[in-house]
């Protein structure tokens, strides 16, 4: 349950959930202008689910099968709250923060 693993999970979950969020018509229109094209929506969905899957794999690999899922769900809930807060109050910040979360995740992964 090291804090670093949690930060890594939070970054990956945030990026994944943000991608899923922005793939939806309503939220894409909040952050950018208009609905996403079919290709973009598909790409975002794939990226989103991939991020969530990677965060699950990271959690289980680094924390084991008993603590990993617990921590994964906790980080997912925290990241989801962050995404909802941002998309509701500062929709323009979602993409930059999600993009910044990925190199941050890489840095933390190297430190773990």
């Amino acid at each position, binding site marked *: *349950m090291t*804090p670093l693993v949690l930060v890594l999970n939070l970054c990956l979950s945030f990026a994944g959930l943000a991608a899923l969020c922005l793939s939806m018509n309503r939220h894409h229109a909040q952050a950018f202008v208009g609905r996403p094209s079919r290709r973009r929506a598909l790409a975002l969905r794939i990226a989103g689910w991939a991020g969530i899957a990677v965060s699950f794999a990271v959690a289980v690999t680094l924390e084991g099968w*008993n603590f990993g899922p*617990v921590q994964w769900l*906790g980080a997912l*809930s*925290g990241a*989801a709250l962050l995404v*909802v807060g941002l998309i509701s109050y500062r929709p323009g910040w979602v993409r930059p923060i999600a993009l910044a979360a990925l190199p941050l995740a890489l840095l933390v992964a190297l430190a773990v």
Partner: protein
Amino acid sequence: MRTGVRQSMAWLHGWSGLVVGWVFFCVFVTGTASYYRADISHWMRPEQRERVVATTPEALGQAAEVAVAHLKAAAPTAIGWYITLPRPGQPMLDLAWMTSLDAPFGHATLDPATGTEPATRATRGGDFLYAFHFELGLPPLIGRWIVGACAMIVLVAMLSGIVTHRRIVSDFFTFRRDRSAQRGWLDAHNMTGVLALPFHLMIVYTGVVTMALMYMPWGVSSAYRGDELRLYAEARQMPAYRMPVGRPGTLAPVAPMVEKAAGLSPEALEMLIVNNPGDAAATVSAVFEEPHGLSHVHPQVGFDGATGAVTDTLLDSPKPATLTHAAMMGLHMAHFAGPALRVLFFLCGVLGSATVATGLVLWSVARLPRTGEARPFGLRLVQTLNVGTVAGLPAAIAAYFLANRLLPVDLAARAEWEVGAFFAVWLMAALVPLALSHRQAWQAVLGVAAALFLAVPMANALTTGRHGLGGDPLFFWFDAAMLALAALLGLGAAKAGRAVAARERRAHRPARGTPALNRA
């Protein structure tokens, strides 16, 4: 059936949620606070400075002898003595004893170095909030039954809520604040419920399972016919219980028992239980901390009281059924969580409390009459209870912390006075909606709660030498939490003033696309 599944689930969700919502808000809030039970207790005993606690077997043995000496004088004829040994962060001996099955436990706290009461103020600390979480301040059997019944109904409410939530995936990130009040509250309710849904389902289910043998005892009672203690021995949760023989006996010195036990397990020794201490058939149980894992399982070593010989060792992993129950209990109590994960659990608890609170408010907002019409009695009752619970309980908790700092340290029955402050402020907050309009009541009680939380760090700085910026991380984070709560409640009070008035006027015109709530 003319009504569809979704509509009947909506009806079920609304009523099951409402009926238990007020009690369950209290259970959720005090449960969330209990994630930091030890820290709260620590903060409420500011005289207790951090000191290095010796936990060598010899030191623990000495502490145990001090405890037993005190108990021999205070409760020689008790049915059981329960001695919590010193551990890092908690240097005191916590003693409890049971004189009879009906009477409340006797309690004492001792400094193991001196054998007398420690020089800290008398307080129940975080244990009050923890006990309130599952007993509501009532006699244990009644309180646990009420909480359990409400929890089972909440399971119904959660599942019916999931079924009735039509666009649970596409509305996952939706929080509209620009439409009607009803839409906004519904979005907030859905969001706080769905974002931490795995947590909510887990925490309520594991809470019920923790007390499962109390709510459904018939399997055990029919199999064991009055000898239920044998179940726990057979499930390897405690050493075999020996009935007292009626002859007086002397207890062998406990220090050698403690040292022997400490050598048998790598876990830290947590507690010593002495059964029937004055009897010839007395037994002693040495209880260890749970090994690092999800399960709430304590390894134990049993001793014969008169001779000090080892009678039973429960050091290996329990059987599957016990392990499953223990894992569920472990998930509920989250003792395994380190500081970072504990923050996430706390956050999920806050989201759960918010789900209940937004649900209660949504219920009343959805049934506001058109402007000019009087509010029916049922609606007025719900609104009054909403203010008293959702705004009143935080105010009560703040008053509890404030009383801890402001009451004189040498006041008699000080701990009871602190609890009295909790209930007194809560009662006053609950009566405020009877005197003010609904909007004013929300503003007033939320504002008072915010002010009380703001006062806590100030009272702390004024009455103790230790404040948030003094270098102690506990005091820093506690002050920060108090200020954050004050800000949150203050924001709520401000918004209640502006928003309720405007939206009460628009309430009869719900926005387009709002799913029709089934008005009961």
